[in-house]
């Protein structure tokens, strides 16, 4: 394995490409459950924030932040056209019949912030506390497993022989029309 700090910086782009790909999947109504071979239905929506960055080549960066519950994403698509990638994304992820998760994920670190899981029953007794902890742990492991599986599916496509003629072309068509 590479040195962790070096690897972190060198492969930041993979996380940003992945978030951009998620946006592509959402906008193009792709079946995320099918992509991840999930046993339960999964759907995703863009939440209330999206951050994009464009490296301008001379070590300077252009950063575009779109926030708000009903914010239009036109500026984001314009940024994509100019070569920007998504670096941070707020997502609403629905799993199964009723489970709803909301969180912001950062491309470079995969840190999750503002994560809301489906609600768990508040505890009164010690036994109930244990039940609540187990339920919470289950939900957190479930949502992170979906993120990892989806990310590895992206990587699988990215290293496949037909990436340039298939995956890349589809995303380019979406961005540039």
């Amino acid at each position: 394995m590479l040195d962790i700090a070096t690897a972190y910086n060198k492969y930041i782009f993979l996380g940003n490409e992945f978030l951009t790909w998620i946006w592509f999947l959402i906008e193009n109504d792709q079946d995320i459950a099918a992509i991840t071979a999930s046993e339960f239905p999964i759907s995703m929506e863009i939440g209330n924030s999206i951050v994009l960055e464009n490296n301008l080549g001379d070590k300077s960066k252009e950063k575009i932040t779109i926030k708000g519950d009903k914010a239009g994403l036109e500026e984001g698509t314009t940024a994509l056209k100019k070569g920007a990638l998504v670096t941070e994304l707020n997502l609403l992820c629905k799993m199964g019949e009723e489970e709803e998760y909301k969180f912001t994920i950062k491309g470079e670190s995969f840190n999750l912030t503002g994560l809301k899981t489906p609600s768990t029953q508040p505890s009164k007794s010690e036994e109930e506390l244990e039940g609540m902890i187990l339920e919470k742990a289950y939900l957190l492991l479930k949502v992170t497993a979906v993120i990892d599986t989806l990310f590895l599916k992206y990587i699988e496509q990215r290293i496949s022989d037909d990436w340039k003629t298939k995956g890349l072309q589809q995303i380019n068509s979406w961005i540039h029309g």
Partner: protein
Amino acid sequence: MGLISSTHSMSRYHIEGQFEATVMDEVRKGLIENAIPKIENEYEELSAGWTPYESPYNPDFEKFPFIFGTYFLFSLRIDKKSIPAKLIQKHMALAIEKKKEESGRDFLAKNEKAEIKEMILDVLMHKTPSIPNIYDVLWSYEDKNLFLFSTQKAANEIFETLFLKSFNLKPIRLFPYTIVETKSKFSAPEKDRVLSLSPLKYVKENHA
């Protein structure tokens, strides 16, 4: 924000390696030996250690549980003293003035000022109380997953050092590269292909 709160902020780890002896005993031993001291060291700027999830201010792992079902759940407590820069500045100005009066000189040498600063920091450190910060740790030993309910760089670094020292298992922070290394079933040649990837630009000229 910890495990039982309405929103969470967390970073994730893959735990490399496994215990040779009984897992529970090893975890208990690591937690007890590296629990945060009950009595605060008045002169220490920073103190960090484990504490039970249900008892952040009484680090008693004999009394409070750390095993919940198949998970280990405990907390990292970091007690930190922070002296405001303006307070140091004020005490420095007063002490320098006093020293000048006592010595009858108009100025102080660089090393005299450094000595004064050291003395002031010592006194203020002694007087300032530590501020505790608590970060929950949820460890699923079987599948090598660990959640640290913090995304703060300093807390994560303290966690990584303390975890390795306590359990002799290496916590590997999960981000794009390490997810490929630890969570994928890619073959060695496939991993090599990942390593050789370079950044994409979705600009018009790529459009076939």
